[in-house]
């Protein structure tokens, strides 16, 4: 039973970490695209 609860917590923990990583990736993508768009606009 203990190992089952541990595994459940590990699954939730892993899902939480991955979700936050995806959120971080979203921010990174957003700012990267913003950065290149700003450079392009500055060149014009």
């Amino acid at each position, binding site marked *: *039973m203990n*190992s*089952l*609860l541990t*595994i*459940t917590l590990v*699954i*939730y923990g*892993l*899902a*939480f970490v*991955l*979700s*936050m990583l*995806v*959120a*971080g*990736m*979203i*921010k990174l*993508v*957003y700012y*990267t*695209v*913003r950065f290149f*768009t700003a450079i392009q606009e500055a060149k014009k």
Partner: protein
Amino acid sequence: MSWHDVLSLFQGLQTLVDASPVLMAARIGFIILGMLLVYLGKKGVLEPLLMVPMGLGMSAVNAGVLVLDTGKTGTLFLDPLVTNQEQLFSLLQIDFLQPIYTLMFSNGLIACFVFMGIGVLLDVGYVLARPFLSMFLAICAELGTVAVFPIAMALGFNANDAASVAMIGCADGPMVLYTSLMLSRDLFVPIGVVAYLYLGLTYGGYPYLIKFLVPAKLRALPMVEKKVLVVTSAEKLAFAVVGCTVLCLLFPVAAPLFFSLFLGVAVREAGLHYFVDFIGGPLLYGATLFLGLTLGVLCEAATILSPKVLLLLILGMVALLLSGIGGIVGGYIVYLLSGRKFNPVIGIAGVSCVPTTAKVAQKSVSEVAPNVVILPVALGANISGVITSAILTGIYVTIIPHLNNLLK
């Protein structure tokens, strides 16, 4: 000529009379339930696009049972339990829905089509505007998806079946179908049916949960937007491409679902109007029609009647209830962290039944404060719910087969 000979002219009636009392009661029960689903779909209590074909299919398949060549009873709709290749080839030529089931349903293609359609309808700008908040609420709303896993195992399910049942908590039909296809082929039919039946119920049940857990004063809390982030199509497209690639890299087993979802998003953001019209119209609605029809036809009493079904019904409800509670708890956490400026009702939108739970959240708020708009933030959490459901699908499908020995 006995009355039984007369009945043999009408084989649906004959097989009903000849069946065991339990099977007879189940068939009659499913016929009535099917009619009820059509009625509730028409009334708008349940999702009509799914419930009307599903209900009619359920009634028809349980009425149209006949004696086949082999002497056994069956239908001319489809046989989900066929495993023999020769038999399958023969059935593909006889049962009219067998090609749809074999070539589109049991390999998850129909779920992928629905996901492409959802992708086309999604505006990921809501997630891009507040990614951490949206993903946090969404992962809180996966409480049932995780918590029901040990509960199901304690009730005697093996790890594969327990994970498939727990996935009902994510309230995402294609994900549930996909997980049970990958992990639990024996329970695939009842789990799929229970999941879709309950998805219809979230629309009716969650408003009561919100009223029970969030007082009217907090429900009326207005959202103060500091700065509305403008997200361009290029940013959304870049997110779709990078997000799809990274998630496929992490969870190859759920790659078809990720790909389908982000394909829809990419097509929309790239401005491919012909594809958008096709995927968001004929493909999505065609897939939904056949999904409902197949699910209804799968509800044949002889196929679905199993002692585990009652447990599935209970566990499915617990999973969705816990996910709703988890979402609202997430909403309360953000409410407290934001200095009591965040409407906790938004948390329930983290349950990824797009866009139903976001609409339910807005409706519950509008009842007490008609001028308060929470829909943009709720949609962000709602769309993130699809991503967290996909993440949990990936985790379950990837690690559960390796855990079977450990959990025995």
